[in-house]
């Protein structure tokens, strides 16, 4: 029967969630959210930051990686309440004023992007890696990416892209972040 709707139940949460204050990509953001929600859901569905992906929900694939105070975490394993008071960086915050971050440019230039689903998480992990270790060896780069699964590229061009950015910084004598 067309249009048959079996039953509309009452909303599960009777009380509207309180306002949560987060700092995301350098800006204060306010939204109704429950501290017990997962950070990945608050970012994606509460703030519309769909650059944060979900690939597994168990902290294995790294597609949901965001930076908390500059350190990479799986946002699928973080309660939103735990992110209050910290600086959250998502992929949307990596480029500034329409200008790509050097890592983003390098990924484009070196062919390190295929389907692109792992890419936001991978870029943030790469950024955190280079911020902590200015001149990583190839093994250190690989270690820095163990939390980000990529099924498309075999990692070769991803590593080359990261090496090119590290190399360019080295030649510039350190460089900015």
């Amino acid at each position, binding site marked *: 029967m067309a249009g048959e709707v079996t039953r509309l139940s009452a909303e599960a949460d009777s009380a509207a969630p309180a306002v949560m204050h987060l700092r995301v990509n350098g800006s204060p953001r306010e939204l109704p959210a429950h501290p017990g*929600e*997962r950070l990945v859901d608050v970012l994606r569905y509460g703030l519309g930051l769909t650059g944060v992906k979900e690939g597994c929900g*168990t902290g294995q694939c790294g597609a949901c990686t965001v930076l908390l105070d500059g350190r990479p975490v799986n946002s699928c*394993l973080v309660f939103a309440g735990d992110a209050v008071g910290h600086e959250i960086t998502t992929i949307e915050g990596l480029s500034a004023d329409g200008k790509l971050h050097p890592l983003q440019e390098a990924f484009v230039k070196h062919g390190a992007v295929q389907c692109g689903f792992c890419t936001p998480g991978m870029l943030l992990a790469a950024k955190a890696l280079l911020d902590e270790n200015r001149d990583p060896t190839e093994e250190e780069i690989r270690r820095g990416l163990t*939390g*980000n699964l990529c099924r498309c590229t075999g990692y070769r061009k991803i590593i080359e892209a990261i090496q090119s950015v590290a190399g360019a910084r080295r030649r510039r004598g350190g460089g900015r972040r």
Partner: protein
Amino acid sequence: MLLRPEIAEPETVKQAMALLRSRRGAVPLAGATDLIPAMRRGLAKPRLLVNLKRIADLRGVGRAGTSLRIGATTTVAELLHSPIVKTGWPVLAEVARDFGSPQTRNLATVGGNLCNATPSADLPLPLLVLEARIGITGPAGKREMPLAEFFRGVNKTALRAGELVTAILVPRPSARTGAACAKVVGRRAMDLAVAAAAAAVTLAPDGQTCRRARVALGAVAPAPMRSAKAEAMLEGRKLTPSLMREAAKLAAAEARPVSDLRATEAYRREMTEVLVRRVLAEAARRAGGGGRDGR
């Protein structure tokens, strides 16, 4: 069942304990790396999460006298990057480096890893051979015990209702002590060990006789365990390759592995022998280098 538990944010251990007592279904919250997936699947249904991460007393790596003090909510990343750990207890940094991924290292806590008490957990082994003690606080007051007494079975610890782990204390290794860890895994990161071992040996001034030996095994028993037989064989004797081989055999015999989707019991037992032999040799080499679990 719905993924929206209440979260309380105590600032002191006392407040945390009161909250844990306040309600049935109140559980401590540290890294959440196991909790959230379990909640998603409907397997864990906590009513109240008592967030321990804002309690200053539980955070961070520091010293307590000459001992290393690891606050319960210290993340594995903090352990890995701590200069104190790197210089004084470097085997801990090595194990931390091979733990999970950069992301999970920033979330998982030392206390959480110990309290989860999975048979293949990484951190217990070096802590066991370094003779760590675990500090606990609860309604009946504070207590401390050797870490070796803390693990009671699969996901079972000595914690009583309402108790919290506050810190792990690792004594300063004596002179001429070396420690090493190793594990067998199916891929080089993000895998559970099918067998793991750690050893710490302290040499006598002659540089050859083993004054003290500690051997710990992981993933081959319901809980991380020490191999008393291997330790007894080694202590007081010169550490030759053949002695270490014998000790490794004893350790393998003492293990109680099971077969599961990752490996059979037989393979795990055999790997225990290989790993104990290797970590003993490496620990002895490091001890001979004159360090205190140094290089």
